[in-house]
């Protein structure tokens, strides 16, 4: 039997999955679109758009969405979906705020200290994790389609949040929290909220692209049965993915509380769609098995840059969703064309 091969002097490792995915054509092009938009607005409004302040607000306003999209990237790569993130965010914010109020004299948490704030954080994270766990168990164990399960928790989490608060926003948020996480900065220019989002995103990217957990996420989304036969605990993995997403929504709720100083109960009804759009815009396939964290970051910033640019240029803000939708459809169309030409090779 011959042992010759054409595997050229096979010592140098090829570009790894991570590196290759990083520059995979779709992410690359959508990244160019983002850079193009940023440069375009900078040229159109040279004195107002490319400023440090504008850049900071851009990042701050995208922070919470970015944290949500880290979880959503995992979910969509497993070929799932999570419609509940916005509602879970609100629920977690309410639970966190209520916990802090309950521990404060006269139910006013405005001047609460760090001990109380820590309890609030734990409460918010737990609140998010509980919904994530419920989603995960219903999807992976009871085998109910993710769309249905999370449509249910989308309604239920918001409903419970409104029951707890009687529909009235909690407005006493500790000043110490608002000053630091809300609008404080570190390293002179980096808003703390952005710092948290960056840390979460980097951890998410690390988990997705360099660990077994990440590899299994792709495998489950690509072919769950093959993953199972390779000894991967598919059920457990899915539960964990939804749990992480719930946990991150909880963190998002706490960040939002710190930034706005209120629970903004009615302000998150379209978060889920914005996050899904961002993740898909970034090249993650709704069919599962494909996607990257960098893509999701880019996908979050395209709508954010559009909004900021329109506001600064005085364009009606109602154009933003129209433009985002156009970019989204164009991105998916472009990607499919590219794939088709690749197949034809």
């Amino acid at each position, binding site marked *: 039997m011959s042992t010759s091969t054409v595997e050229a002097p096979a010592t140098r490792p090829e570009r*790894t999955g991570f590196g290759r995915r990083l520059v995979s054509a779709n992410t690359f092009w959508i990244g160019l679109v983002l850079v193009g938009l940023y440069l375009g607005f900078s040229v159109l409004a040279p004195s107002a758009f490319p400023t440090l302040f504008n850049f900071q607000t851009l990042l701050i306003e995208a922070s919470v969405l970015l944290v949500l999209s880290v979880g959503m990237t995992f979910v969509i790569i497993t070929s799932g979906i999570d419609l509940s993130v916005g509602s879970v965010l609100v629920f977690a914010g309410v639970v966190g705020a209520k916990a802090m109020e309950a521990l404060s004299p006269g139910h006013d948490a405005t001047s609460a200290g760090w001990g109380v704030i820590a309890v609030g954080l734990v409460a918010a994270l737990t609140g998010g994790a509980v919904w994530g766990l419920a989603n995960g168990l219903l999807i992976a164990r009871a085998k109910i389609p993710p769309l249905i399960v999370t449509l249910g928790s989308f309604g239920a989490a918001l409903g419970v949040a409104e029951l707890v608060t009687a529909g009235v926003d909690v407005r006493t948020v500790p000043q110490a929290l608002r000053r630091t996480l809300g609008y404080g900065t570190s390293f002179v220019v980096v808003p703390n909220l952005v710092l948290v989002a960056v840390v979460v995103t980097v951890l998410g990217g690390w988990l997705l692209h360099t*660990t077994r957990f990440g590899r299994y996420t792709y495998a489950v989304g690509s072919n769950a049965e093959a993953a199972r036969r*390779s000894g991967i605990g598919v059920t457990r993995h899915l539960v964990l993915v939804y749990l992480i997403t719930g946990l991150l929504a909880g963190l998002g709720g706490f960040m939002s509380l710190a930034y706005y100083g209120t629970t903004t109960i009615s302000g998150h009804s379209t978060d889920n769609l914005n996050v899904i759009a961002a993740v898909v815009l970034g090249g993650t396939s709704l069919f599962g098995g494909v996607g990257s964290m960098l893509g999701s970051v880019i996908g979050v910033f395209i709508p954010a840059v559009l909004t900021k640019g329109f506001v600064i240029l005085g364009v009606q803000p109602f154009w933003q969703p129209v433009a985002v939708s156009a970019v989204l459809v164009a991105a998916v169309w472009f990607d499919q064309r590219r794939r088709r030409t690749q197949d034809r090779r």
Partner: protein
Amino acid sequence: MGEPILELRGVNKSFGPVHVLHDVDFTVRAGEVTALVGDNGAGKSTLVKCIAGIHSMDSGEVRFAGSPVHVHGPREAAALGIEVVYQDLALCDNLDIVQNMFLGREQLRGGLLDEAEMERKARQTLASLSVRTVKSVRTLVSALSGGQRQTVAIAKAVLWESRVVLLDEPTAALGVAQTRQVLDLVRRLAEQGLGVVLISHNMADVFEVADRIATLYLGRMVAELPAKEVTHSQVVELITAGRSGDLGMARPEAATV
């Protein structure tokens, strides 16, 4: 000849009302190739999946290297040293060749995936299988031809220090040259002392490599004989009718599903 490495006794398996395996006895011997033959739907793949822990058996016992074992999942089967090439291959389209070969058993370095090491081993294994048509081990499986996929599935199974390898129609999609490679590989694995099970519908291949031939007929093991002691036409008769002369079942016509 070879010592029994894997022994199944009285295995039954039903899917709901459908009784697929009836009191199946099956022995895999170290250093031998056992061909598992039978018509479409006879239960060959089901038997393999029961051994691999993908399906649980309704009843029956399994002995591995002499001691009774209960395999509850693919990971436990792999831990015993049982590797399987599935008929439907079970590869992840969106992962590349290396990622598929190491799926579920990734090599780590400092807790992180050791891509370079996995790639090196994957190349080595593919080279030992004389794979010439795959340009890069980082090609996504979705971009491979049917035969190339099959080769990757086989490479995935022989990558590990295993003691029993079950191949479910591994040559179905392969060309002449690749089929030859796989048959050579099957022999080579047996010579290295592994117990090899080859499922195939190709009698010429079966007679070329098999030491023993086990025939399933409607979920019943009707004959387990040394390949030298049966003829081509006897095996075909066993497959299609459940008996041949005084070989096989006494009253195959009484067998029902």
